[in-house]
C-alpha cells in the first residue's frame, strides 16, 4: 500500500467541495440554500484540517476543525434567525431581492 497516496485525493476533494460550495453561493437564490453552500465550504476546510493534522501528527487540525463547526453552528443560528425575520416581514426568500440600496 506504500504506493497509494491518499493525500492529493483528500485535498482535491476538499478543493472540489469548497469550489462547488462557492459556486452554489453564486448561482443559488434561496438564502437558506446559500447558507448550506457556505456550510459546504466550511466542511471542505475541515477535511483539509483533519487530513493535514493526520499526517503532521498534530492535534491542532482537529481542534481547529472543531472550532469551525462551532462557529458554523453559531452563524447558522444568527443567519436563520435573520432569514425568518426577513420572511416574516413579507419578503421573498430570494437574495436577488435584496438590492434596494443599489437601485
Amino acid at each position, binding site marked *: 500500500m506504500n504506493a497509494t497516496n491518499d*493525500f492529493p485525493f483528500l485535498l*482535491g476533494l476538499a478543493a472540489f467541495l469548497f*469550489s462547488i460550495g462557492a459556486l452554489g453561493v453564486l448561482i443559488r437564490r434561496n438564502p437558506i440554500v446559500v447558507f448550506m453552500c457556505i456550510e459546504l465550504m466550511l466542511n471542505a476546510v475541515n477535511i483539509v484540517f483533519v487530513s493535514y493534522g493526520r499526517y503532521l501528527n498534530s*492535534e491542532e487540525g482537529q481542534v481547529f476543525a472543531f472550532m469551525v463547526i462551532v462557529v458554523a453552528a453559531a452563524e447558522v*443560528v444568527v443567519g436563520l434567525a435573520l432569514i425568518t425575520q426577513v420572511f416574516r416581514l413579507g419578503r421573498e426568500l430570494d437574495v436577488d431581492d435584496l438590492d434596494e440600496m443599489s437601485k
Partner: protein
Amino acid sequence: MTVIIWVTGALAALSALGVVFSRQPLYSALSLVMTIGALSVIFLVLNAQFLFVVQLIVYAGAVMVLFVFIIALLSPGAEDRVRVDSRFVIGAVVALGITVAMVVAARNGITFNNSNVFRAQQIGQASDPYHAFSFDQSDLGLVNTAGNVQTVGGQLFTTFLLPFEITSLLLLVAAVGAVYLTRRTRSGDPPERRERALGRKPEPTLEEDRIEVEVG
C-alpha cells in the same frame, strides 16, 4: 482504507453537487446531510474520532435539523432552473481552476516546482508525507492513535484554552442575536409600530399614514 476514502469521497462530492443543483431547498438540505455523513466517515478513517462524533451530532443532528426545520417553517418554493450566466461561468471556471491547482500542487510529483522539499519534512514534522502517507504506516504518535478524544479534549483545555473560551462568548452572542432578531415586537411600543409602517411604505403620504394608524 484507501478504498473507503475514495468511495466516501466520491459520495460526498456527488451529494455536494446535489446541494448546489437541486431545485428544491429540502433536497439540498438532505444532500448536505449526506455530504456531512460521508465526510464524518472520512474523519473516522483519518483517526479523528472526536470530530466524527461532533460532525454527526452537531452538524447532521443539530444544524441540519435546524435547516430542515426552517425550510419546513418557511416552505420556500422550488427555484428556477440554474441559468448559465456570467456568475455561473465565473464560478465554474474558478471552481475548476482551484480544484485542479490544488490537486496539481498537492501531487508534488507533478507540481510546478520539483526541487522543493515539502515544508513539513523540512521542519521535521513528517518524514515524507506525500509519498509515505497511507494508513498502513502506523508509526504515528498519540494524536493518531485510536481514542484520541482524550488528547484532543486535553489540548482543548490547555493549549487551546483561549480559543475555547472565545467560542463560549461567540455562542452567547449568537444566542442573544437569535433571540433579539426573532423576538416579536412588544405591543405598546409605538415607535416600533410606526417604524414598521414606515418600513413597509417608505414614503407615506399624510393620508395613507393616517389610514394605516386607524387600521392598526
